[in-house]
């Protein structure tokens, strides 16, 4: 199983857009993809249609909204997967995974791939059990890695795409320690350069150091929401290129457009959205495709190197 985490120190840069659309591109190619939603805002789970999005949209009061939220308490999700006893005989990872993402209906006519989701919710943040686990940081940070391998998930799926929270919680660290590859979406603003550089340097000192380079390898950054004539974007891009080590790639960019927001509202991947409105969203879909192609190519290069 190839494990890819999508991580950024800033919210609102298009992390969910990237998680969901890359997963869809991989599934279209016939791969079995598991999206692991470590972000307690759980936007990927919502986008992929496994977090009662329809019911939320129909709710007419805060009370009703809260009733729907409360219903998450009775289901097993990512936080339970992280803290439950993976060694017990009645542990079955299938109890934690949602296989009914409507995205699979879109994939079916195209390929034999699919997207399943290990969903999250607000419950991710409210649970203390992980923090209270005996054995120190190493044990707590490796829960996801261990659970993915012990449960058999690693043998069943081709890809795990891990969406991480922007503020690095213990749950978020689990994503970094579980992934072999890491990509960092970022806006190309002046402050982002600082954020990205310090993030990459801290991952080298922690995850990569602790795991002898086995985990958390930053493949590259993905410029998000760029604008064609924006000089700051160009400046930030040059600055990053001169600062970052050469093996960290600057991936094909995703330009700023409202079509991603519209696609998210309809809960469609950008490529399916673009089929309906090719004149508007076609370019965005092409950029995403180009990025996915390059990412897969890069991973294959990495794996032949080894």
């Amino acid at each position, binding site marked *: 199983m190839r494990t890819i985490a999508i991580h950024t120190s800033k919210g609102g840069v298009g992390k969910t857009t990237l998680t969901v659309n890359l997963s869809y591109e991989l599934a279209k190619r016939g791969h079995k993809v598991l999206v692991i939603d470590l972000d307690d805002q759980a936007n990927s789970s919502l986008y992929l249609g496994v977090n009662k999005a329809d019911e939320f949209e129909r709710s007419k009061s805060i009370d009703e909204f809260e009733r729907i939220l409360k219903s998450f308490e009775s289901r097993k999700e990512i936080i339970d997967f992280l803290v439950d*006893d993976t060694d017990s005989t009645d542990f079955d990872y299938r109890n934690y995974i949602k296989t009914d993402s409507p995205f699979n209906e879109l994939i079916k006519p195209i390929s034999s791939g699919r997207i399943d989701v290990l969903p999250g919710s607000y419950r991710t943040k409210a649970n203390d059990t992980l923090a*209270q686990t*005996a*054995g*120190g940081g190493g*044990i707590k940070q490796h829960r996801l890695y*261990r659970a993915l391998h012990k449960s058999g998930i690693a043998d069943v799926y081709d890809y795990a795409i891990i969406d991480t929270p922007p503020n690095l919680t213990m749950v978020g660290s689990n994503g970094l320690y579980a992934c072999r590859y890491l990509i960092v979406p970022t806006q190309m603003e002046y402050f982002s350069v600082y954020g990205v550089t310090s993030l990459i340097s801290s991952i080298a000192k922690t995850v990569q150091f602790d795991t002898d380079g*086995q985990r958390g390898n930053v493949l590259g950054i993905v410029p998000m929401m760029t604008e064609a004539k924006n000089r700051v974007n160009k400046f930030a891009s040059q600055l990053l290129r001169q600062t970052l080590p050469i093996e960290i790639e600057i991936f094909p960019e995703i330009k700023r457009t409202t079509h991603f927001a519209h696609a998210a509202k309809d809960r469609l991947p950008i490529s399916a959205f673009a089929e309906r409105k090719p004149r508007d969203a076609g370019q965005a879909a092409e950029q995403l495709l180009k990025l996915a192609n390059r990412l897969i190519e890069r991973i294959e290069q990495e794996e032949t190197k080894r």
Partner: protein
Amino acid sequence: MVIKIESGHGLLYLSQIVESQEQSKTEKSEVEEISKSITDWGFNLALPIVCLTSEEEKYRLITGLPIYEAAKQAGVKQIWVCLIATDRPNAEKAIEEAQLQSSLNQRLIEPEDLEDFRKFLNEAKISVLTSIPGIKEGYAKKIKEQRPFNSVDELHKKIGAKRPLTWLKAYVKVKNSLEA
């Protein structure tokens, strides 16, 4: 990839704990009492010590077998432990230190408890004095003969220091359980 394990307090699944001794020699009724307490509180109040084994994420229980048994009986999945990240022989020192600390983990005596107790010794009838565990008939008579105790010092001079302390603890326990 070797994961570094650190010593400290935390939760473990009962399934992660291996025990070498078959069963504790603790009375069944006591294990049941602990089990009830774990059910009521949702956690254990005293921490068994565990150390590393050759198996990854399995720990050997080296103290507190009855607490572990009670947790199993209570049907909880996790137990609080003190994990010593070393093997059994090297954990020996930690066991000794923990045992010293546990034996000193005594109830604190409030000044007002001490004062109440002095009054109690001055005023209570023999039949009431003997209701305190540890005060036998003979001592109750001696207490009555030696009255009054105007201060704690005087009490120590007349009866000694050690016995009144034992009685005081028993007295506080009875008093608190009555108030609760």
